[in-house]
């Protein structure tokens, strides 16, 4: 029974991870930008949702809109005004990484100063769980998160396969110069990637705000998980990232079945480490063992 409970929790957490990871994977996979500030996007979305809902007292639909817009805008702005200039100087993988990390610090402290450094959570009945069967408590959020994740992935999949954007992004990841030769604009494509990728954090952010609650550092952990999921799933493979995210979420929780929670993160990253050593290509991706 405890097992079932943990599994259920794992699925909810996993759904959130899956979405965020897919976002990171999309961005990193296509633009090769190590977008460490993805966590910051997550935090911004969460805080603005909370602010719009609790602070300005908007209806939740508007609050969601606010969160979505802010996330997308933040992502695209970073791409345009931070990453683009760096890459123009043939900026290396890690130049980007350091800048991205810097932005992360800025955002975390800004949020702290603006909205308070303490813990916040959206007061909603949805997070109160009910006993569906003896010993198994589920909150509406559990279901919502999973359903929402499925919908998002369906939509994403549709968008990437029906339109050519998906292919174009893959092409971008392999050879931007040639993409220009084809008559496409790498800039525009990477904007697409950032908009989509940032949008994908929004559900996760909202459910976190309502469920576990948020503090300015909330993005950090999610970011690490996304990174792990992206690699385990195979870089550039959204399916992989999603599955890996889900798997990690479940693993984290099931770990508690026998171990203390302080081990859950370690377990996630042990998985990551051994995956890289024994199957660098991840679930679906391609190996880059040179």
């Amino acid at each position: 029974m405890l097992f079932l409970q943990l599994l259920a929790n794992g699925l909810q957490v996993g759904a959130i991870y899956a979405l965020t990871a897919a976002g990171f994977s999309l961005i990193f996979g296509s633009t090769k930008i190590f977008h460490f500030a993805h966590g910051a996007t997550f935090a911004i979305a969460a805080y603005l949702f909370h602010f719009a809902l609790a602070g300005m007292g908007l209806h939740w639909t508007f609050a969601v809109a606010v969160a979505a817009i802010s996330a997308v805008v933040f992502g695209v702005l970073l791409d345009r005004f931070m990453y683009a200039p760096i890459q123009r100087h043939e900026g290396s993988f890690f130049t980007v990484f350091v800048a991205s990390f810097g932005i992360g610090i800025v955002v975390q402290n800004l949020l702290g100063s603006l909205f308070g450094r303490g813990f916040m959570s959206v007061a909603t009945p949805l997070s109160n769980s009910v006993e569906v069967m003896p010993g198994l408590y589920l909150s509406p959020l559990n279901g919502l998160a999973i359903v929402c994740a499925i919908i998002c992935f369906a939509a994403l999949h549709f968008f990437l396969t029906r339109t050519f954007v998906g292919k174009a992004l893959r092409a971008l990841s392999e050879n931007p110069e040639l993409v220009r030769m084809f008559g496409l604009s790498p800039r525009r494509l990477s904007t697409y990637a950032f908009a989509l990728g940032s949008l994908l954090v929004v559900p996760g952010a909202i459910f976190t705000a309502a469920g576990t609650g948020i503090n300015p550092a909330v993005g950090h952990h999610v970011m690490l998980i996304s990174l792990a999921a992206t690699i385990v799933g195979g870089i550039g493979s959204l399916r992989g990232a999603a599955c890996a995210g889900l798997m990690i979420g479940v693993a984290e929780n099931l770990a508690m079945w026998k171990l203390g929670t302080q081990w859950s993160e370690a377990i996630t990253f042990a998985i990551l480490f051994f995956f890289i050593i024994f199957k660098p290509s991840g679930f679906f991706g391609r190996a880059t063992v040179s």
Partner: protein
Amino acid sequence: NDIEIGAVFPLSGPNATYGDIFMSGADLAAKHANDDGMLSGDLKILYEDSQALPQQGVVAMNKLVNVEGVPYVLSAFTGVSKAISTLAQRSRTVAVNGGGVGPDLAELGEYFWNVIPLANNEVGALAAYAVNDLGHKRFTLVYVDDPLGESILNELEKTLPSLGAELVESHSIAASAQQFSGVAARVRSNNPDVVYVASYGSQQLQIVKQLRDNGVKAQIASYSAFSVPGIQQQEEAQGALFTTQSIDWDSEDPVTKRFVDDYQAMHGKNPTSYIANYYNAVRVFALLAQVLEEQDKEITGANLLAQRKATDTFELVGGEVSFQENGTLLAPIQVLEVDGSGSGKTVFVKATE
């Protein structure tokens, strides 16, 4: 001719809320001291940011000791306090902790004082109340696996059996963890009467919320870390028990009264024990320095220490208190219940043994 003392508080990062709280207490004390003209000069407090991290703490402490040359430094957080204690000892600067309650803070040398009773006293008081008065038998502990958490674990394991209760299970969590639905599930699965939460900062709020969200109905209990506004306002936390050193907020003793009134006047809410502690920390300095000036001795760490040993009781918020030999304050402990009032409602007071 200002008289300066230092403070190493977390002013940024996840624990910055504490910095703000501690400050409000210390500043008030300095204000009072200056209003009364207790000292020849103006008492000023120089704040440095530790981010609650040891290394930053040491850097900050270095600045205070070596650049500003202060004789007396307010410290907070177990990790930071430990880190700066060596420097305090070497530079003969008094470091005073009013926030961290890890029992090992009592063994950091004679230049390290605590104006706060340490966790081991608190746990005893709470256990006694919960078992004897409320008749709870089964306890579960959720604790951050740092020295504080462990000491609480040990303390519970020691005291509960003697009271005829048992510690059913204990879950240690990482300081950075934010996801507790799993813990909640496990807590629920061995349904205890009391869940003792030994955490701090924003984490403890998250724990409480998620425990309740995931259908844990048991009595929640904790230690003085709960005396922060966050908890006091959080509705999931209503009814939770926690301990602080006993301060009778509406006692008529002048020091306490003035403190409480001015604080309410200034901040429009009731003070908490943290605020009182740092008020006391500064007040202790003011008192000692006053004496030293009368004997026109220089105000140095060494003299302050000597003078403290010479003084047996201090007039502080919460009444007359005295220091133990190891520099730790002895004070009665009270058990409070979170009732949204901001400071909590006192339900039980356990005198010092």
